[in-house]
């Protein structure tokens, strides 16, 4: 119980930081909104889809997932910054549970995602995004997105604990997440890719997440040419499996790494 309270205080600290430096929040929402506009109006015209409502319907789930995937980088660099300053020593000399700091940060980044997703949803709506499923399924899609971001947050924690310099961590995590989001069905059909890449794209968690969200938003399952594998048949289930696996690996790993960081 105390451990949860401690974590929440850390989360609150992150929110306070946002209140003190609101630019951070503004830029972290401007970026995805910019993506929405770019893809919608710059590439949207040249990407043909058979869907009523056009490219924007397919695009929005892609951008939602991409944005939540970038949580990894946000968490990683935020934590790395704390680690390189003396602040972390103070936290660790306090009589609080050692997981509180990392746990609190994942919660904070999760909350930030709520705001960002809401802003993006509104932006999408303005440029013509109209999910056709019911309110329940739409809500479920967003919960899914938040859960995905949360699980990647823990990968970010691990990355943040592993490197010494915040900038290195930031670059490294973008180096991981960028290809991951583009080697997927998020922005274009995978059918245009060379065959081996199609397989990668198909098993890519970003693809399964995008496909799952599209389904929940009431679109047909647009996948690739090899679309009879397990992930393409069951994107929701597969996404869930991915999240559970990621959490099962990275939560204990990160907590351990954090409390053993003093052995360095």
């Amino acid at each position, binding site marked *: 119980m105390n451990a949860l309270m401690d974590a929440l205080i850390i989360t609150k600290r992150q929110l306070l*930081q946002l209140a003190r430096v609101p630019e951070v929040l503004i830029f972290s929402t401007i970026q995805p909104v910019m993506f929405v506009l770019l893809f919608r109006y710059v590439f949207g015209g040249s990407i043909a889809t058979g869907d009523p409502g056009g490219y924007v319907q397919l695009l929005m789930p892609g951008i939602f997932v991409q944005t939540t995937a970038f949580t990894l980088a946000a968490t990683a660099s935020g934590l790395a910054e704390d680690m390189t*300053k003396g*602040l972390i*020593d103070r936290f660790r000399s306090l009589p609080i549970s050692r997981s509180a700091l990392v746990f609190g940060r994942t919660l904070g980044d999760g909350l930030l995602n709520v705001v960002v997703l809401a802003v993006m949803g509104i932006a999408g709506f303005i440029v013509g995004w109209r999910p056709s499923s019911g309110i329940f399924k739409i809500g479920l899609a967003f919960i899914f997105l938040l859960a995905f971001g949360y699980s990647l947050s823990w990968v970010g924690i691990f990355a943040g604990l592993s490197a010494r310099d915040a900038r290195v961590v930031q670059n490294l995590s973008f180096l991981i997440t960028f290809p991951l989001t583009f080697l997927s069905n998020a922005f274009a059909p995978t059918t245009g890719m060379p065959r081996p890449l199609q397989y990668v794209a198909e098993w890519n968690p970003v693809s399964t997440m995008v496909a799952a969200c599209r389904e929940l938003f009431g679109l047909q399952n647009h996948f690739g040419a090899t679309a009879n594998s397990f992930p393409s048949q069951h994107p929701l289930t597969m996404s869930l499996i991915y999240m559970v696996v990621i959490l099962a690996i990275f939560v204990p790993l990160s907590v351990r790494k954090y409390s053993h960081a003093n*052995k360095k």
Partner: protein
Amino acid sequence: MKSIVAEHLVRTYRNGEVKALNDLSLDVEEGTVLSVLGPNGAGKTTVVRVLTTLLTPDSGSATVGGIDVLKHPEKVREIIGLSGQYAAVDETLTGWDNLVMFGRLYHLGKKASVTRADELLERFSLTDSARRPIKTYSGGMRRRLDLAASLIVQPKVLFLDEPTTGLDPRGRQEMWGVIEELVKGGVTLLLTTQYLDEADQLADDIVVVDHGKVIARGTSDALKKQVGGERLEVVVDAAHISVTMEAVAKVSGHAASLDEGLRKVSAPVTTGATALIEVLRLLDAGGIHPLDVALKRPSLDDVFMELTGHVAEDQVVVTDSARAKKKDKKSNEKKSSKKKGAQS
């Protein structure tokens, strides 16, 4: 009762290449101040990190407040306060935000955290800047806030790692004042420093550390004695030099030496002020009126150089010039006059 005990601590880095702690032992009596004095890289931060449960030693053992640091780190954390070498506060938050947050993390409760934050801000003269982000604070304000954060729940044992490094002379004076107040309150304090005058000023006991080892320990007086003890110095008119040398030698029991330029006669003594009185009596009986009489004790600078050799000497020079850069003219003058006194 010993509040801090460290026994045979060893901590190496880079596969044993760097011995940050090389069989280091120390202890601190409850309610006293121990200064760990050493040049940069001596191992001061490392020993503080071990004692505050932040770092595990390769071998050795330690207790703080009677609690084993390695076996029950979580219990140790409940009774200690730590103010590290670099101010450990959230830069984007205000001073008030920081203190309230740490109060909450000490499980003080909302109201108590706020009250305590206000109290500490007041006590450390930070009330006016309480609502400003730490980023806008001066170095001295930052250190004070950091210290305040380590005092949220009155710690039994307090660790301060180089509390005045990087501060300007005024910040340093203020910090010393704050620390002296704390010590009056009865806290056990372990304080690391590179500055000899700081150890001299604040500590009951000093351990001199170099290359991860304790190379000397004692009160500042005892350390000074260890290096050479006192010297009796008498300055007289040129005409009286030979008589004076005889008198000084008689009191001292050793041959007196003469600095001709300064017309200063000196010799080692062990009897302190008594020697001073004796020599004055002898001179007076001979009708000699000295221009200046002094009992010179070696400064900690001398102690440091003598004990740590040329490496530390470099360090002392570095710290002095660093301070000079900070326009600490006063302390610099004091320092150089001290040195002159010791050399002559």
